[in-house]
């Protein structure tokens, strides 16, 4: 399988839909397992997808995750329509958060989302435009042994 015939699937996520939070990431995790990827890459991709999915639910109006899989790498591109991030560098630092008390009561919003995505990916790019939205590109390599 090469880039042209990679397994591809698109997932929609609705902003503010806390009831369904995590369902898309669980679906992605199951798919990756079924496709026969190794346990470490499946876990890393699932955790990063979940952090990205939660960010859409907590902060954006709507978003989508585009999954693309070849035998040696997983790529997830996340695009949302939302308020964007004022200071991306600050948002990437551990502990920085703009979460509301309600989000924190659910166990999230500790300022670990983007840093944790970065930690779990082999390549991570983020572009954000205030008032329009944010785009994340996450790549996980099959032979990578990050945490």
């Amino acid at each position, binding site marked *: 399988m090469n880039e042209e015939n990679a397994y591809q699937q698109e997932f929609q996520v609705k902003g503010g839909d*806390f*009831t369904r*939070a*995590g*369902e898309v*990431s*669980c679906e992605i*995790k199951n798919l990756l397992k079924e496709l026969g990827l190794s*346990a470490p890459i499946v*876990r890393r991709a*699932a*955790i990063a997808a*979940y*952090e990205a999915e939660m960010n859409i639910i907590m902060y954006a109006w709507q978003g989508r995750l585009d999954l693309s899989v070849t035998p040696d790498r997983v790529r997830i591109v996340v695009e949302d329509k939302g308020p964007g991030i004022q200071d991306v560098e600050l948002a990437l630092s551990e502990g920085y958060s703009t979460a509301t008390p309600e989000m924190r009561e*659910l*166990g*999230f*919003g*500790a*300022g*670990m*989302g983007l*840093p*944790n995505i970065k*930690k779990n990916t082999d390549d991570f790019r983020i572009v954000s435009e205030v008032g329009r939205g944010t785009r994340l590109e996450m790549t996980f390599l099959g032979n990578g042994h990050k945490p």
Partner: protein
Amino acid sequence: MLTLREIKNLLSGELLTPEMNLEMECPRVFASDLMSDVLAFMDPGSILVTGLVNTHVIRTARLADVTAIVFVQGKRPDAMVMNEAKLHNLPIISTSCSMFEACSRISRSFPDGGR
């Protein structure tokens, strides 16, 4: 190494998913009410000890490879949370111990404190 049954007994806990296997070995324990920390710092295959009772705990557990969940302070999840746990074969234990007491009892039985 402790089994889930031994952990349940240490905590005088109640298994809320009675049909599930308690003989699995538990090499690691992670305690937190913050799911962000579970996702960022927990080793796969850990038991999660938490006081947070909502569906996000179950989703986080599924995504981060949690082996079983212990709810402290006598907390019991509602039917929706329990259904999701059962659907995904996730053993759930409830104990009246506080978070501190639960961690203390478990860690005394682990040679390296469990984490």
